[in-house]
């Protein structure tokens, strides 16, 4: 329930001066609090970082098994579901000698590109993936100096990621 605060205007309020003094007191109090008690709400960004939610959707990665083989089987589900059309997969066959699990992972992505400039971070690819291969990490520092770097290839996506995964 909303609390209704009523304030009866006294005679002093007509002269504005008391109200001005109250205002000055408020700012001085905050001045003292910030300067001497260190109660600033600012986060000094590069040194301090904001802790985002566990469910934050940031930069993509592809999970790998202990032998560093990607879990992706190039099923195209993520590419199909992607509303921003930013995933491009080329499927291929895994050579017999590279496949440690025999028949289990014989299909593989030859190339797996994500155009991060198109991506809208909806997380549909992650939901669609039957192998839990493509995931969104909590990294949000994705700025690049050119557009080419923002298109992630398979090597980039297979990197080690901290956080969820």
């Amino acid at each position, binding site marked *: 329930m909303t609390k209704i605060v009523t304030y009866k205007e006294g005679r002093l309020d007509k002269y504005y001066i008391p109200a*001005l003094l109250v*205002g*000055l007191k*408020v*700012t*001085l109090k*905050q*001045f003292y*609090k*910030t*300067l001497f008690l260190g*109660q*600033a*709400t*600012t986060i*000094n960004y590069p040194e301090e970082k904001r802790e985002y939610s566990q469910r934050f959707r940031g930069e993509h990665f592809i999970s790998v098994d202990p032998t560093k083989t990607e879990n992706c089987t190039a099923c195209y589900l993520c590419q199909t579901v992607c509303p921003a059309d930013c995933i491009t997969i080329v499927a291929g066959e895994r050579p017999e000698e590279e496949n440690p699990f025999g028949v289990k992972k014989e299909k593989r992505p030859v190339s797996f590109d994500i155009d991060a400039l198109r991506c809208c971070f909806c997380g549909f690819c992650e939901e669609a993936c039957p192998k839990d291969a493509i995931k969104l990490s909590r990294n949000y520092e994705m700025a690049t100096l050119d557009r080419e770097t923002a298109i992630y290839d398979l090597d980039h996506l297979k990197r080690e990621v901290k956080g969820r995964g």
Partner: protein
Amino acid sequence: MTLFDYIAVAAKILFIVGLAFSTVPIMVWFERRGAAWMQARVGPNRVGIFGLMQPVADVLKLLSKEMFIPAAASKFYYNLAPAISAIAPVAAMAAIPFGSYLIIGDHKVNLQIASLDIGILAVLAFAGLEVYPIMLAGWASNNKYSMLGALRGSSQMISYEIALGLALVSMLLVYGTLDLNAMVVYQDQSLLGFIPRWGVFLNPLAALIFMISIFAETNRLPFDLPEGESELVAGYHLEYGASKFALFFFAEYVAMLMASGLFITIFFGGYGLIPGMGWVLSFFQTSLSPDMFQNLTAIAQIAAFVFKVGCMMFFFVWVRWTMPRFRYDQLMHLGWKILFPIALVNLLAVALIIAWIGV
């Protein structure tokens, strides 16, 4: 004048100009960080220790930018305006005493650039010049926002100058002099034995009117209508960039410094020692020669002056980040229908009291 006098005057000018030039970056820094602190932010803290080099970076940026003159501007007046705006407040500070006197050898050096008998009028004359750069800048820029800012600025400054003048006249009646140095000497005594005889205790109403008026005179919030960002973009200095804008910026802070100096000279005892300082100084009285003691006192007076001005400058910043801006008709209402009559009544009351009891 002997060579010594020339050197003394040059040194005093150097001190005042140096004070102005060193106050401005400190105030720019404090304005930004103080604003942040009052709003629970951190403020610029990257350039140098505590961000103290931030104003240097700002100035370097402003000075290295292109000097741009709008095609439709009236070039002569456009260039003249920032120059006047920077010179007027510095010139006004010439008549404000910042200490009693030093004794060097057998010379007595008054710590005031121009020891004028009509010091207060000189200060007011130079302070009055500050209307012109605003009008010139607004008119010469040939921009409607600048024009509106200039109209607002000039009418506001002229309106508040009346209340300021009347408050001042009431104090002149109390002091019976136009010499700023004599006013400080008058205030240097004690009232009822325990509080200093400062103008603010003798006539608090005049002090209040004077203070409100100097806020309006220096175009500081809550009276910064000439540069009201929300409706006039930047007001009279909208068309200025690079070093010319830097001059306007510089002028704003020097005007604050000058106004603070004038205010404390008239109402807070000027360079007079802060209560307690005299007691500390009295310990040295026996161990030093009279001349050296006078020099020590003068240095303490300069420190007191700088401290008082500093407090006043803090107050300027404090008020700026507390009060909202006035609406223009409210500003005029306050100036003409409230401050002006109060100042008149105050003047009459002071005159009657002095006529009856005398001071």
